[in-house]
């Protein structure tokens, strides 16, 4: 949807080091990206703190930059992380502090906040944690 007011609270929270996600007040479903209604029950939702823990869904190491802003950064890692309690929600993110060749699907992650690759935003990033895979 071409109205950036839907996503704005997420960005403000992230700037303060808080991960919030659209959470339904009626059925509790967490959805992503934000929609006018809860897609599970059409209830109203609000931004609620999400679990700092997540699971690594997948990742890639980008070698070819498709925009001039990214050209100085290759190769770099981008990943999808599924926060606990939010099945099917996949945050685009990166994993820091670990070499890409040590990653595996299903690894447990903990959220942190950092300047992103492009230096244009302060957003969630993840670190691998030593925790049994649930």
């Amino acid at each position: 949807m071409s109205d950036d007011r839907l996503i704005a609270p997420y960005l403000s929270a992230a700037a303060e080091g808080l991960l919030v996600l659209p959470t339904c007040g009626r059925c509790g479903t967490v959805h992503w990206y934000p929609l006018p209604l809860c897609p599970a029950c059409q209830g109203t939702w609000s931004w609620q703190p999400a679990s700092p823990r997540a699971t690594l869904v997948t990742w890639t190491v980008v070698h070819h930059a498709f925009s001039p802003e990214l050209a100085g950064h290759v190769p770099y890692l981008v990943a999808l992380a599924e926060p606990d309690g939010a099945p099917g929600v996949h945050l685009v993110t990166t994993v820091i502090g670990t070499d890409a060749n040590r990653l595996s699907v299903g690894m447990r992650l903990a959220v942190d906040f950092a300047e992103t690759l492009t230096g244009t935003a302060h957003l969630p990033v993840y670190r691998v944690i030593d925790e049994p895979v649930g």
Partner: protein
Amino acid sequence: MNARSQRAAIITGIGESAFSRRAGVPFYALQTEAIQRALVDAKVMPGQVDAVFTESALMPSLYPVDVAEASFGLTGMRQHGYLGSVGPGVALALKTAGQAVRAGTAECALVYFGCNWGTASGATYDFHTKYPSKFAVEVPYGFYAQPTYFAMMARRYAHDTGISVDQLSETLCRIAVGQRKRARLNDNAQKTRDLTVAGYYADRMISDPLRASDCCLISDGAVAFVVTAEQVARDSGRDNHAVLLGAGYARTGLTEESCLTQGAAYPAMPAARASATAALGEAGVSPGELDFAEIYDCFTISLLLQLDQLGRCPPGESRYLVAPLGEDGGPDWNGDAFPVNTHGGLLSQAYILGANHITEAVKQVRGEAGRGQLPRSGLGVVQLAPSADHATLVFGRSR
């Protein structure tokens, strides 16, 4: 038997412009040429066209219906519509044309589509900045351009199907190398330089595990179809018509901004299953009866994700349907093998967003695919993705 089931929707005419990296002529010239060729192929006069259907994302600005109407003198047009987005949108336009013909509200429908993304190459990536959410929380991480999306799907797919990424790459390589060989048999193909297995692995990595040859081309080109009732088809004098036997269209339930990353099924494509089931059901055809498939291959992995949903194998086992490479370096389709992307696909023929898959299916069914003609091609399927929707078309010979 009711009246509806007695009427068939026949693809009486097809037309293609030349497909190329940069056409060097304006898009309208390509689309005009494709429509002219389709009308000539169908042996219909423009005044006979009573319905026009096209795609809704690109065509309203690239080649709107009123331009087709006024240029060709489509004075008999009594209905028209802009339908769906990109590849599945073209299929939805054909599905709608077929429904109109079968319902008797049209006798002769024109469907057209093309794209100029070879010349307007940045247009491919507009998708990522068009949506505020994507722009705000994807682009800052460098999550930009389609290879990134599909590389992530590929890695997850390997995990979900219980194989290593290297094992997956072995299948992706066979797809890329095999389709290049097929493009070399196609007189309207853009990329015909030979590709070997060694060449595939030597390619530069774009977004791991996808290499350059896993990624589709970008192209300029246009196609058109004339969909008619039986009498118009008979008047054309042709006796090898392709019939649109079934058409299915299904949605993912996700928005355009979320459909390539989100959802509990990720990266599987349940909408592809729903559209295939609908199309095959309407055609009265079982997946095992199909002679060939043309599958939307924006990336090699995209082909596997959709083939998984065709019902020809259990989900996750489509890699076993990808033919081994024969002595000539092309796909070995002898025996029970299932020919896929006989024209070279988006990877090696051209990136006409899957509209070229539809023209190829019609050519194969007619027996007019030139050096790429399959020996058995009476029944074919086209699967078009991949976005917030999916479409499947089934074509067979007229009786």
